[in-house]
C-alpha cells in the first residue's frame, strides 16, 4: 500500500502540521525531521513541477484547460506510485459550479481533509495575507475565491477555493473519492488517536511507538524551536509561521462582532462539525 493521497484543507487549517506528522511517521527517524524538509510531494499549485512533469509550458493554457490537463498528469503520476504518496492541496473538490476534475480523479487513492474552526482560520488568514480580520472574513465568504497569481507572471496554478463552507462541504460530501475528515482541534487534543486514524486510513503500517514519536517530533514546541533556530522556508518575510498550536487563543481573541459574522456565514457547516 498505499498509493496517491491528497492532504487537503482550506488554507491556514493545519496542512503543514499534518505534513510534519505524516513525514515524521513515515521516516521513523531518531530525530525530528527538519521543518525545511517537509517534502511530501508536489502540491497542486506547483506550476514548476507541473511544467517539468508534463513537458507543457503551462502558462500557454487557460485555467480551465489546465485543470483538464492536470487530471491527466496526476493520473499518470499516480499510476507510478507504489508507496504512500501525499500531496498538499488547498483546492475545493467542487467549486464554481463544477467538480474539480483534476482532484476528483479515479487514479487517486483518497484524501485526508483537515478542517479547522473558521474563527481561528480567519485570524491566521488575516496574518498570512497581511489584511484585517474583517477582510479575511470577507474572503472566506466568497464563493468565487481562488488562489491565482495576479501580480506575478509565473505563480501558482489557479486553485479554486470557493467559500470556507463550500470548500468544507465539497470534501465532506465527496462521492467518488474516499475522504477521511479530521478536525484540527481533534488532532491538537488527541494527536495519538487522530494520527493513528490517518495512518490506518492511508494504508500505512500502524505502529503505536512510531505514532508516539511522530507526535512528539511534530509538536508545536519542536516546530517553533526549529523555526526560531533555522527559520522556515514557507514562512512570511516577517513574523512566525508556527505561532500558536491550539487555536484557542485565536478564537478567544476574536471580537464578538467578527465571530458573529463568521457564524452568520458558516453556521450550518460549523454546527455540522461540532463547532457550535
Amino acid at each position, binding site marked *: 500500500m498505499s498509493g496517491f493521497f491528497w492532504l487537503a484543507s482550506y488554507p491556514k487549517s493545519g496542512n503543514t502540521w499534518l505534513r510534519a506528522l505524516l513525514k515524521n511517521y513515515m521516516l521513523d527517524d531518531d530525530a525530528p525531521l527538519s521543518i525545511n524538509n517537509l517534502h511530501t510531494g508536489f502540491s497542486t499549485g506547483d506550476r514548476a513541477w507541473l511544467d517539468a512533469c508534463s513537458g*507543457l509550458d503551462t502558462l500557454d493554457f487557460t485555467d480551465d484547460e489546465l485543470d483538464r490537463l492536470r487530471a491527466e498528469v496526476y493520473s499518470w503520476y499516480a499510476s507510478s506510485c507504489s508507496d504512500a504518496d501525499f500531496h498538499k492541496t488547498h483546492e475545493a473538490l467542487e467549486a464554481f459550479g463544477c467538480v474539480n476534475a483534476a482532484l476528483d480523479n479515479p487514479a487517486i487513492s483518497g484524501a485526508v481533509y483537515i478542517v479547522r474552526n473558521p474563527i481561528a482560520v480567519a485570524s491566521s488568514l488575516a496574518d498570512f495575507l497581511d489584511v484585517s480580520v474583517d477582510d479575511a472574513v470577507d*474572503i472566506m465568504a466568497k464563493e468565487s475565491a481562488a488562489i491565482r497569481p495576479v501580480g506575478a507572471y509565473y505563480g501558482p496554478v489557479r486553485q479554486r477555493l470557493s467559500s470556507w463552507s463550500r470548500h468544507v462541504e465539497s470534501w465532506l460530501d465527496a462521492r467518488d473519492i474516499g475522504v477521511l475528515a479530521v478536525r484540527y482541534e481533534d488532532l491538537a487534543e488527541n494527536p495519538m488517536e487522530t494520527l493513528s486514524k490517518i495512518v490506518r486510513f492511508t494504508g500505512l503500517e500502524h505502529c503505536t511507538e512510531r505514532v508516539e514519536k511522530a507526535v512528539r517530533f511534530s509538536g508545536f514546541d519542536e516546530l517553533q524551536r526549529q523555526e526560531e533556530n533555522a527559520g522556515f522556508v514557507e514562512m512570511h518575510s516577517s513574523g512566525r509561521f508556527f505561532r500558536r498550536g491550539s487555536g484557542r487563543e485565536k478564537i478567544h481573541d476574536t471580537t464578538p462582532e467578527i465571530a458573529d459574522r463568521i457564524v452568520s456565514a458558516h453556521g450550518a457547516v460549523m454546527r455540522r462539525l461540532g463547532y457550535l
Partner: protein
Amino acid sequence: MHYQAYGLRLESDLPIPEFLEADHPAAQPDFVIKKGNFSSPRSSKATQTGPFTFIDGSILWFRIPGLADFEMNNGREIRYSPSPGIDNDTIRLILLGLPVAALLVARGITVLNGAAFVIASNTYLLLGRRGPTRADLVASCLSGDGEILSDKFIALGPENRVLIGNRRIEMPGWIEGCGLNDKIYLTRSRKELNRLSWVQDYSPTSFPSAATVAYLIDGGISARADAGASTLRGLDKQKALLACLYKYKTLEPLYRDSGVLQMLVHLSAKLDLYRIPSSLAGSFDWRDHIRSLTRS
C-alpha cells in the same frame, strides 16, 4: 512558406511570423512543419514517457488532449493535428515550445531553459532552472523600453553560437537565473506575493494577463500572447491587446561571436534543459557538450 530559424531552413504550411522569411526560399529545407490528421501515438511500439509524450525510436509524439497532437520525426519533420475548433494561434503557441525544442535536440542542438531580451540595444540571456524567477524577472527588466526575443528556451548550436529563434546574438550582458545582478534585482516580500495570489472574485476575464510577452502582428489587428493564452482564446481581444506588455519589433539578425560559452560553462550547474523528455535527451550529457564546445 519558407523560413529560417535556429540556424536552419524550414518549410511550413502554418504561418509562423516569429521566424524570419527565408533568404533563399528555393533552397532545400532542413525540416518541414505540416498539418496532418492523426492521433498520437501512431506506433503500437511507442513507449509513454510522460503524461503527454510517447516515443518510438527517433519519433516523439506530444499529445495534448482537446488541443492538438504533434509528431516530431527524426529531426526532419513536425506534423501537427489540431483538435476540432482549435485555431492556428493556439497551435503555434504550443508548437514553438516542446515540439520545436525536441526537433532541435534531435538535430544535436542543446536547448536550455531560458529567455532572451533586449534593453537599450544590449541583448541579455536569462538562464536558469525552471521556476518563478525567470518570467517575473524578464517582465521586471522590461518595465521600461525593451523587447523579448524568446521567453521559452535558448538553443546552443554546433558552431559555438547561441541561437534565439531567427537570429544569432551577441552577448554584452548576461543574468543568472537566480536573479541577482548589479543592475537587476527582483524582490517581493512573501506577504506581498501571498496577497497578489489571492483573488476574491475569480473569473477568467478578470485577469489582465499572465503573459510574459505578447506580439502585435498584422498592424495590431490580430494578436498573440506567447504565454497566458487565456487572454486570447475565447475572450475579449481588445482586453488582450491592452494586456500585451511589449510590442514585437523585427530586428536585423546579428551574427557575431560572443563569449557566451565561457559564461555557460561557468553557470552550467545552474542551467536546466528545456522541457525535453529524458528519454529523448537520453544519456546525452549537455554539460560535457558545452565544455567540449569550449575546448574546440
